[in-house]
């Protein structure tokens, strides 16, 4: 599994977005779950809630700390992933699959332009060759 799949778009706050028509599936990236460590609690917006791009939409807690999850797009929450509420470890085990967080009806497709393409996200997290390291 790629740690930055090609078919997704990314936020600088480490959320991913998979767009299908006017619906976006949202989760947090492999890099984010790795930084967090074992996720043991997740709080996600309920169906019908409105989320705004770059605003907090939920929280994931690891054993050591709580971290905000930001909405990478604006819109109405169509569904949150009940499995992640019950088994937060899915965020670690399968961040791009079973660990998805919410499905959102896009309020403004133009917002997608603000997200990062895979190459840009790789650069953002320092994955590209020649971007530093020690």
């Amino acid at each position, binding site marked *: 599994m790629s740690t930055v799949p090609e078919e997704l778009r990314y936020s600088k706050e480490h959320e991913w977005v998979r767009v299908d028509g006017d619906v976006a599936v949202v989760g947090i990236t492999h890099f984010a779950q790795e930084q967090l*460590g*074992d996720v*043991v*609690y997740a*709080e996600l917006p309920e169906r019908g809630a409105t989320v705004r791009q770059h605003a907090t939409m939920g*929280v994931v*807690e*690891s*054993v*050591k700390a*709580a971290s905000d999850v930001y909405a990478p797009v604006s819109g109405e929450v169509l569904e949150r992933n009940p499995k992640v509420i019950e088994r937060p*470890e899915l965020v*670690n085990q399968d961040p791009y699959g079973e660990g998805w967080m919410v499905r959102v009806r896009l309020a403004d497709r133009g917002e997608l332009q603000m997200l990062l393409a895979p190459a840009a996200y790789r650069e953002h997290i320092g994955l590209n060759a020649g971007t530093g390291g020690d």
Partner: protein
Amino acid sequence: MSEAPLLRTALHAEHVALGAKLVPFAGWEMPIQYPAGILAEHRATRAAAGVFDLSHMGELRFHGGDALAALDRLVSSDIAGLAVGRARYGLLANERGTIVDDVIVYRLAPDDLLMVVNASNVAKDRAHLASRLPATVPLADESLATALVAVQGPRAAAIVEGLAGDGTAAMLAALPAFGVVRARVAGSEVIAARTGYTGEDGFELFTAAAAAPPLWQALLAAGVPMGLVPVGLGARDTLRLEARLALYGNDIDETTTPLEAGLGWTCKLDKDFCGRDAIAREKERGPARRLVGLVVEGGIARHGHAVTDGGVEVGRVTSGTYGPTVGANIALAYVPTARAAIGTALAVRIRERDVPARVVRTPWYRRTV
């Protein structure tokens, strides 16, 4: 705080080789977790065994004919009655009856006592003790020269005994809880103590810093096939909290008293020790607040979160986590004595919301022998 460079334990290179995430802790660069992660390390310790580098802990040594009596006047528990080859948990208290540190005193020989103290308190404890000890009992700080490797979990004893030299395996196997003995393990001279901070059976092995890497490697080589994993400070915290073992700086400090913290059992009030009078007075009137265990429904309580009752703040969380073995969000908190009864419904303010919490019996985890 000073920006002094972090100290490294004798096992630093081992941690790096294992891919540990290293963080500053009490002036030391310590592994918080290895690649397996905190949950896996916690579960492996409960199910099989974990090996911990605790070389940051402080070791203070007291020699001389007056050492036992002198420490008895400075530690809350019965040190005068400590037999050779035995250890006891106790508190250092000040004259106000609040907690300077929690320690374990090991009697290695009639006139040879080892006190293990929290890493963050070494300098403070030294000053506290040195100013109160008689001149006939010098205090030697062996913290930097001493490495400490703990092996904890249901298979810990078998792993350590399997590495013991001739004659010492049976001695280690027979060692009771809070027993201590000199032994040879994997070729290294160690002080082996049946103590720990996880709620599990196991050993804490004190050795010279130079002897620590081969000891660590031997424990991993022998232990990994039996399910042993290296464990960092992250899982050490979840393990100790499930077993309701207090963490100095979180649950107890110089603003808290032994009775409030539920550590009255460590205070032998029919002897004279530093802080005794204040603690005895508090016992007569009863502590105003208590450190209680909570189970929190919906979010993880963290150190510093407010405990509320009817929307009003009544206390503070001192430690909180997800308890991997308990399978619940657990916390310790100081609450007024009137709200400390088992079953009391309270709340913890997490992200501006009062999340339901209930006072429960502790420890949350107790090993089945």
